[in-house]
């Protein structure tokens, strides 16, 4: 596995505009219309995508994984980072634009 740049816990991602996905059981099916291809995500990947699509930042995704999959927080955060990087590399997600500052 190639070394990738560290991803900040506050980093947020969103599905790319050509991506459509649905949970099917514990897994997820992702249609990438520009590719074109269909991906099947395992349960952890499906949950990561679901949380990111819901607007959760990477740190919150890691915390949710730790709770739902009963793993150590540090391990869950690392998994979240790795999965996010993999989803980005696969063309499923992209960095979300930063929220506008409060007036």
């Amino acid at each position, binding site marked *: 596995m190639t070394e990738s740049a560290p991803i900040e816990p506050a980093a947020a991602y969103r599905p790319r505009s050509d991506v459509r996905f649905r949970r099917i059981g514990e897994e997820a099916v992702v*249609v990438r219309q520009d590719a074109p291809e*269909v*991906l099947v995500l395992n349960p952890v990947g499906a949950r990561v995508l679901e949380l990111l699509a819901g607007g959760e930042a990477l740190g919150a995704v890691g915390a949710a994984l730790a709770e739902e999959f009963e793993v150590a927080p540090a391990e869950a955060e690392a998994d979240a980072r790795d999965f996010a990087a993999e989803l980005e590399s696969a063309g499923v997600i992209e960095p979300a634009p930063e929220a506008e500052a409060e007036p």
Partner: protein
Amino acid sequence: MHDRVLLTPGSGAATPPALFAASFLVRPGRFPEEIAGRPCGGEAADLLLPAGPYRIEGLDPAQLRRLGGRFGGFCVPVAAGPTGPPRTPDRPDPTPAAASGRRSPLLGSPASPAAASPPGADRPVELSVFAAPPRSFRRTVPAGWRYSFDLDPRPERLRLAGWGFCALLERRAGGAWRAGLWVTPGDRRGFLGACTNLLRVVAAYRLLDAGGALLHSAAVAHGGLRGGDGTLFVGRSGAGKSTVARQARGLGLGVLSDELAALIPVPGGCAVAALPFAGDLEPAREPVPPLRLARVLLLEQAGRDALVPASRARAVAAAAACAPWINADPHRATVLLDNLGRLLAGVEVARLEFTRGGGFWPLLALPEAA
């Protein structure tokens, strides 16, 4: 973390709007804005396809004859007009519900709230054929061109343009579909190709509205074409669908399809229905009642014959990859995934690794056709 399934190439990916129709129409900017024009003639026919019927109006006599020759018992001539006469008694609705006096299960059943039909699903699809001047269409074929057509999907309308035709589909208030097809009246052969292409697309969208899906797949009946169970072999172009269908026919099994099949929701599960669109085999000539779908096999050519368990998500992904036009439609791809998730919920699913010699058939334990 993920597996990839490639979409079927050339299965109707949406065309970038700037390029839409440029290869086929002399003036793509003058694409019809509304479904209106001069009919080619006064003839009409019903096509008894799943989630239909599909009423085609504005045909000239030669076009009607060509449709009848192409679609056989699926095509029922009717008097032209907005409502037409009652269905011809000796050409009944092919659905088992019609045979039993119930509503068509292709459109959902009142006995099954989960399969309730969407608004407009009980109305026929209306397709009008209009005359277009020959100078409307390009007559030169780009080098390396492979037969295809352009598709521009929007939320409530679709535009199509292909060799010698253009078409506009609109989903009207209430959910009913209306379509216009513009062709050159004297272009008999081109008309049939245009009409067939349009019908494939309309069927895909209509089935989606009815909770179903149109899939590139071979459908085989075990236990007989009437009353048996269906096995669906799903695969992209070149995956072996026609090979499987040909071998099934050689074994005496009924074959509903070697190219495109319709999945439709029925109370308690999913059914598979034949369409008169074929790949290498002769297309179906007469409607047969849909079969209960018992098994979905994901085709994968390999050096051995084996059935490998597959998850429902994997099956949905493979099916979505083989759902032409809809999987490329940004407004409807999630509906497709929802439909497939429901349709395949109670169906046995496996990956079929197979050699082309047919050694896999004993693994399927399909009894001979009745």
